[in-house]
């Protein structure tokens, strides 16, 4: 968007905070073509990894792939800063394979800063934001501590743990969002003045140890995958020398130290009021709440290639420094460990997210968007996902384009935001695969197929990028059709794990009708055979009849242990590159299930499309239970689907809302 006067304090969108949410938001706004400012206290503190030195993990990795497929930065920056790459959950089904990368923290910040610095239309501003200013009820600017005013038409607020942050180390308390840094007090008060209901959450971080004080020989090494698989769809290949992580563990002696000093933990003395995450308990919590466990895994993760800090994953704590040193030194390999920084707990304010719409815009303040921990989440990936979506929607609000909302069956990002604005939260929200009811169709391997066209339409992906995805989709479809016409001997496929049997395959020459039109359905049918059985819906066994000794290559691939590798060994060459071949395996082997889930998703979408007019919530809503009425008026859901997911809203209440929705639809 053009600016009127060319001064440097007038923007389309101002993003407050340059963490993982803020960076994605600013890049998205600028990428869409808006004049954007990114305000942060110190410019060098960009995209800092305040806690663990890793991006991704189960379900989180899915979100990073989605961010990347939409044109976000996190995947690319991770590929540049990663020092160890691993696919988690390999032992399970492909739907829940999740990539994770250990990163060089300083490099991550630097790479992100470089990306920001080279993005046209994006200005970086050092400053502390005190106020969001409104004109006519809409956001018109943000005011800095020094009185400067940055005018804008939309603002994205991403303060992380800085929003009224309070750090606890034993009985010591320090105001701040990270140790040694400031706390955003005025901004929190400003949000309260805007009428936003706030809550308090807590998170924690473990101590950091000096690399040279650890007895590495005594520890079990944890290598990365070889070859490393890139996070980003747009990274061709990773060339790096991967670092090792190491594994140690707590034991009865460690736990005894914790128990002896529990009275010094602010978690147990009552000093901490905020609610911490149950999925990421402090060591104090682990010991107290799981007394039957005599040992817990502890991972030692380097915070960079050339830095001394070692992150001690698994022992987040807020005990006093001297107790931290004591319990750390009980662990194997850490007997002489030198602690560089103590672990701590941090409490911070967040805005109860039921006050946000599905675009992350505050319902009562047009132009005000929130993303990241301020919405009650934890995790870099959750923050980045929201930042991207808030940025896109802030840009759309300014340009008058329609809201950009992802459905629950489109992306984990859709699940994340819907859960945030729909459910009640008592602890920081983290993404899990089980939160996604359609997870078989939302895999890390098909994020590009799900989202790249959208990213392109948004203006965040180039035509060249989306063309690559189209080429992949076409190649997979073509290969599937081809494999349906190739016959292969069962014996050869079965034996193919070891000895290769050549020339077991032959192409079917007589194809019933024309080339493409005729073969596509036959591919569907033959693939259906193998998968009907797998989905437990059809006949017991597909290819056991007359032509007992041969089957199509596609059917062979659909068998429980079928793989492209086994096909190749059986003499069926497959021209796809390995990562695409892996995609093909997944869709062929799990087709029955994937199709079932796609059907369920379609049914659900119908409810999502039934909009509820916001005027409804001013009405009497008679016929509804009191609990449901209270919840609905509080959440003001935008669709019948969203309403049905609010706790306390029963199917009976949904039935009434269906009536209202239909009446509203009937009204002119």
């Amino acid at each position, binding site marked *: 968007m053009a600016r009127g006067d060319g001064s440097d304090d007038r923007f389309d969108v101002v993003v407050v905070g340059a963490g993982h949410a803020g960076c994605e938001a600013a890049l998205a706004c600028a990428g869409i073509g808006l004049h954007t400012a990114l305000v942060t206290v110190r410019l060098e503190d960009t995209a800092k990894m305040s806690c663990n030195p890793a991006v991704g993990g189960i379900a989180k990795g899915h979100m990073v792939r989605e961010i990347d497929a939409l044109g976000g930065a996190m995947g690319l920056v991770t590929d540049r800063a990663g020092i160890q790459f691993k696919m988690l959950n390999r032992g399970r089904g492909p*739907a829940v394979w999740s990539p994770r990368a250990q990163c060089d923290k300083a490099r991550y910040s630097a790479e992100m800063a470089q990306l920001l610095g080279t993005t046209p239309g994006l200005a970086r501003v050092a400053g502390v934001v005190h106020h969001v200013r409104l004109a006519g009820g809409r956001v018109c600017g943000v005011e800095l501590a020094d009185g400067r005013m940055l005018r804008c038409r939309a603002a994205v607020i991403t303060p992380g743990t800085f929003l009224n942050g309070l750090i606890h180390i034993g009985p010591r308390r320090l105001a701040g969002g990270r140790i040694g840094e400031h706390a955003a007090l005025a901004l929190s008060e400003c949000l309260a003045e805007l009428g936003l209901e706030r809550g308090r959450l807590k998170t924690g971080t473990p101590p950091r140890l000096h690399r040279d004080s650890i007895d590495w020989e005594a520890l079990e090494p944890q290598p990365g995958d070889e070859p490393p698989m890139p996070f980003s769809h747009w990274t061709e290949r990773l060339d790096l020398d991967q670092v090792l992580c190491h594994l140690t563990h707590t034991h009865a002696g460690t736990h005894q130290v914790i128990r002896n000093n529990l009275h010094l933990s602010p978690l147990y003395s009552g000093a901490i009021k905020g609610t911490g995450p149950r999925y990421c308990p402090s060591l104090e919590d682990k010991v107290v709440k799981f007394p039957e466990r005599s040992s817990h895994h502890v991972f030692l993760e380097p915070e960079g290639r050339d830095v001394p800090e070692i992150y001690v994953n698994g022992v987040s704590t807020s005990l006093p420094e001297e107790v931290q040193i004591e319990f750390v030194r009980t662990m194997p390999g850490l007997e002489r460990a030198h602690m560089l920084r103590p672990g701590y707990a941090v409490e911070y304010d967040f805005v109860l997210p039921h006050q946000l719409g599905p675009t992350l815009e505050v319902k009562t303040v047009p132009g005000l968007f929130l993303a990241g921990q301020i919405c009650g989440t934890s995790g870099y990936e959750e923050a980045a996902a929201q930042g991207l979506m808030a940025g896109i929607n802030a840009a759309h609000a300014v340009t008058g384009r329609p809201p950009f909302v992802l459905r629950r069956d489109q992306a984990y990002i859709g699940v994340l935001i819907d859960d945030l604005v729909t459910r009640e939260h008592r602890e920081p929200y983290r993404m899990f*695969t089980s939160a996604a009811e359609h997870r078989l169709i939302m895999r890390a391997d098909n994020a590009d197929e799900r989202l790249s066209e959208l990213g392109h339409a948004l203006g965040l992906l180039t035509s060249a990028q989306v063309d690559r995805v189209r080429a992949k989709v076409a190649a997979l479809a073509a290969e599937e059709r081809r494999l349906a016409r190739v016959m292969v001997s069962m014996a050869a496929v079965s034996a193919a794990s070891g000895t290769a049997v050549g020339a077991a395959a032959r192409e079917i020459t007589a194809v019933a009708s024309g080339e493409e039109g005729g073969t596509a359905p036959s591919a569907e049918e033959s693939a259906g055979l193998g998968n009907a059985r797998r989905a437990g819906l059809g006949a017991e066994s597909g290819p056991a009849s007359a032509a007992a000794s041969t089957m199509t290559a596609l059917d062979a691939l659909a068998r429980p242990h079928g793989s492209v590798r086994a096909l190749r060994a059986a003499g069926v060459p497959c021209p796809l590159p390995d990562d695409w071949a892996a995609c093909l395996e997944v869709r062929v082997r799990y087709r029955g299930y994937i199709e079932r*889930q796609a059907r369920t998703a379609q049914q659900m979408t119908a409810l999502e499309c039934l909009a509820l007019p916001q005027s409804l919530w001013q009405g009497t809503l008679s016929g509804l239970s009191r609990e449901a009425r209270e919840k609905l008026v509080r959440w003001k859901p935008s669709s019948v689907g969203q309403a049905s997911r609010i706790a306390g809203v029963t199917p009976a209440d949904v039935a009434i809302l269906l009536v209202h929705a239909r009446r509203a639809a009937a009204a002119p």
Partner: protein
Amino acid sequence: MPPLDDTIAAIATATGAGGLAVVRVSGSAALATADAVFEGGERLESAPSHTVHHGWVVARECAEAADGAAVAPARRLDEVVAAVFRAPRSYTREDVVELSCHGGELSSRRVLAALLAAGARLASPGEFTLRAFLNGRIDLAQAEAVADVVRAETERGHELALSQLAGELSRTVNALSDRLADALAEVEARVDFAEDVGGIEVPEHVLATIAGLEASLAGLLQGAAYARAVREGVRVPLVGRPNVGKSSLFNALLGEARAIVTDVPGTTRDRVSEAIELAGIRVTVSDTAGMRETGDAVESIGVARAREALADCAVALWVVDGAAPLDDNDERIARELAGKRVLVALNKRDLGEATTLAQVGTLLDGAQRRVVAVSATQGLGLEALRQALAALLGAGEADGSLSGAVGNRRHAEALERARAALDRAARAAGEGLPGEIVALELREALAALGEVTGRSVGEDLLERIFSKFCVGK
């Protein structure tokens, strides 16, 4: 769907003669509406909940004057007792007034007309129950049970519906859902916390839970055929070639001479039906025309009707002349009975044994069948015939209480889907498929169980259920 927030009224009792009739009003203006037609000791609006008041329902011909004094005397329509139930402790969870007036159609209709004139809307079929459901007083299974309690035609049917209304089935299914949700959580935990929980995808104790749930569902479903027969009743046509004694047997089963009996083959032209009660099931027995090739126009219509009756029956009662050998007509009929549950009455045993039980059995090879020798005219073997019929209707499998039984086709179907999904989950786990696949099946099973109690229901489903309800309940 009608509006959900206005005040509705309807006659809640069956039409026809009776000592009392009840007219029910429900909604936020129920008390005011009732007051507008009620003349008693005090205003119902100031009456406490769960109290009854004697008075008269009156027709006020003119509006009240500004000072509140009635300008015209009210015309008394009927003497009534008004029962006041205040929200939420009422049938619908709204304010409810029930006016008990004199029986007979006229009284209740005049009272209802007065209420409608006072501003109430005539309730749609099932609307009171719809509101009870929508207001969260009863769940879906209970709502459906209301219709069954009203409709029940046998004592056992009534018992079944009452037990469902009391929430027996819901409790059973909810308990299964809880166990299933636990099992699902176990599987999900291993998917999302692979590093923390670890171990195999679906541990033994979860497999055991799945197997246990499958068995519980199978148990529930086993009694379902009988429970459904109890709930819905069954039709049993008597079929057979002409002059084998169908009408005689029909009369013998009814205990009265309902059908005309002669020695002339083809006497019965039309279908004659009567209901009897057997093992708690309302059994509609119908006498049909003897099946044979015939040139007689009227008789051939009767034969066609006999075929129709055969097409949609639960059990066919095939009457064979035991004193004569089997003929071509019998063989044709046997072919038409293929795939059905068949009770064979080998009739006229008092006259001879030209056909044996075994011969009939051979003709019906493969069918689920019982063969009983009887004499309709002598009244021999009738009790054995009744018992065999009850057994074919599944009565033997559900001797005990019907408490919590599944008598509803929709419930049985949902439970069957849950059972099938559990079966697939167990097989997926057995094949070593990943946890998220097993979880997919468990989620499907959970959703199916939810359909019984309404924990997860679609729009379409609700409408179908509530369109079935009769007015006033």
